[in-house]
């Protein structure tokens, strides 16, 4: 099969463009949160996980400490370990490829790969989405960071509102079913209650603890909340389902 005729490659490319583009919002928000250009680029190049990157700058923007920012980013990165385990079983990369595969193991590359059934397609989907997003995400982070630092007063442009929207946008696709919604509401309440009493950034960690306790005792689906930020198979003409119990 020719490279461009592979459905996984096509999905991988379109998800790369969709995800890469919103690197602009990350870059702009990051510099207006107080990070400089190279700190912003370091997050996109080295940390490379959208949710964790937004978490890091979100805590810094709210006046939280570096430790709190690191903790929030790291806790949010835990799900990538679960993805790594799934992908290792699926793709079985060997040698240096394993280390490269780990770096581009994110929501979107995982979803593109696991949405395919043929092993060769799974491999193509993973690498196309992984590498494509890495390149475009970094490119558009740089564009956003340069544009953001030229904007002047970030509040006048509503960039604090953009951050709110970005987090809601990351949360939204994971709210499928009653339990995820309940967890989100409980954690939102816990955050509001904690804000006046603990230093900035800590309410986020309090709510992570609440969510972990719920996860420990609950008996819900084991992949709950592990939905990608952007669903590569959302378009109606794809018939491939994404996971157990999902009609997509």
């Amino acid at each position, binding site marked *: 099969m020719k490279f461009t005729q592979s459905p996984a490659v096509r999905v991988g490319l379109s998800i790369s463009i969709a995800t890469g583009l919103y690197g602009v919002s990350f870059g702009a928000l990051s510099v207006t949160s107080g990070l400089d250009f190279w700190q912003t680029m370091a997050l996109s190049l080295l*940390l490379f996980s959208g949710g964790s990157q937004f978490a890091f700058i979100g805590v810094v923007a709210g*006046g939280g400490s570096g430790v709190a920012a690191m903790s929030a980013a790291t806790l949010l990165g835990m799900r*990538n*370990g679960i993805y790594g385990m799934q992908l290792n079983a699926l793709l079985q990369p060997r040698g240096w490829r394993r280390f490269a595969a780990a770096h581009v193991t994110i929501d979107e590359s995982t979803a593109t790969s696991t949405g395919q059934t043929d092993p060769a397609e799974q491999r193509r989907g993973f690498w196309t989405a992984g590498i494509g997003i890495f390149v475009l995400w970094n490119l558009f982070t740089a564009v956003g960071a340069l544009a953001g630092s030229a904007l002047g007063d970030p509040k006048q442009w509503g960039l604090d509102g953009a951050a709110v929207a*970005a987090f809601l946008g990351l949360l939204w696709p994971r709210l499928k079913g009653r339990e995820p919604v309940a967890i989100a509401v409980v954690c939102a309440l816990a955050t509001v209650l904690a*804000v006046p009493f603990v230093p*900035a950034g800590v309410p986020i960690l309090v709510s992570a603890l609440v969510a972990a306790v719920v996860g*420990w005792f609950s008996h819900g689906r084991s992949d709950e909340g592990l939905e990608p930020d952007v669903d590569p198979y959302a378009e109606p003409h794809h018939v491939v389902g994404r996971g157990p119990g999902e009609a997509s």
Partner: protein
Amino acid sequence: MTLWLWLLLSCVLAYAWKLVGYLVPATLLRNPRMSRIAGTMTIGLLASLTVVNTVASGQSLALDARLGALAAAAVALWFRAPFLVVVLAGAGAAAGLRLLGWN
């Protein structure tokens, strides 16, 4: 300077999570409870980050134009707008409300 330190440490830890899945035998990791916690924690953290960025202002709570951004983003998401449109809706709502004099 210390921010750089925490930032680079975050990068190392993020890569460590990713790599663990590839290097640790699957039998050790295939624990439904662990993946459930990874999932519920993702939801909890993102919900909390949304709230903090909407109503927290340091250690106090404030109701301002950011609430409008939250509402606009929710409407955009309801209509299945792409992520970038959602972000722009949030920014536009906050900027617009400020123009109208609501901080």
